[in-house]
């Protein structure tokens, strides 16, 4: 799919937003927020990734089929995380004698 030419202004705006978010994440990491430090850092990282995917990787202009492939990649990663973590995090829920 040949997408229309995006004005330079859009790319530069996204770039500036990414730099600003990088500055924010470094600044916030120096403030003690407990577990929220992690939440804030990950939220900013997800926003940055979405900006890159949407504008730089042209998913904004891409076909629904391409978007389906993007979502499929994330969906299978979610399965990877969900199944693995549900095993590791639930191991001590039932107090069984250790068999080894």
């Amino acid at each position, binding site marked *: 799919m040949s997408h229309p030419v995006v004005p330079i202004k859009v790319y530069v705006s996204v770039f500036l937003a990414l730099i600003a978010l990088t500055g924010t994440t470094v600044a916030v*990491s120096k403030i003690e927020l407990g577990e929220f430090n992690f939440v804030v*850092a990950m939220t900013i990282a997800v926003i940055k990734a979405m900006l890159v995917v949407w504008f730089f990787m042209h998913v904004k202009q891409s076909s629904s089929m391409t978007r389906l492939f993007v979502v499929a990649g994330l969906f299978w990663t979610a399965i990877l995380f969900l199944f693995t973590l549900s095993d590791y995090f639930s191991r001590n829920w039932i107090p069984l004698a250790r068999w080894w």
Partner: protein
Amino acid sequence: MASRDIVLHPPELKHHFDDIAQQKEASTLGMWAFLATEILFFGGMFCAYTIYRSAFHDAFESTSRFMNVTIGAINTAVLICSSLTMALAVRAAQLGQKKVLIWLLIGTLLLGCVFLGLKGVEYHEKWVDHHIPGPSFHYADARYAQQAQILFYLYFAMTGLHAMHMIVGAGLLTTLIVMAARNRFNASWYTPVDMIGLYWHFVDIVWIFLFPLLYLIGHTK
């Protein structure tokens, strides 16, 4: 052969596609299918990181003190700059601006090399500080010596795999520069520039997650 049997099409359009748009769509889909496998490839490592971080929470947070946040932040900015030059390179290719395209690709390549150079400086620091996992590993906080070593394993595995992708990307960019210089691209066909652009942005996104996870967690401690 009658002339009506000869179907003329531009040289860049392969026989089995209806038109350039369809050919481009197929390439884009194929590239995203590859990137989906790449997401899962790195996903496995991020998953391992999640498991060990939740198991050895305090030990992992204690390692942030030994990460070079300044170089990490500069490298993040360098990669974002390189993503901008890459996006602008694709734009220049779309418009058929050969010279602009070549210079932007060279700029992207140089920024990639700056990233790898700074990464090398960091790896050297880790070597000097005995933070490379193995027999000579030494950690200041004796309580966490074993657990912190796991973090450094993950640090080298994840940043190493990322750096490998950067090296491959640098090779791909060099190929693009040569192809552009040989007039292989025009405004209607520049698919390799577009596809390698997608790859480069993906590698940038991996770093966007690696930076906070490895450098910033537990920074206040």
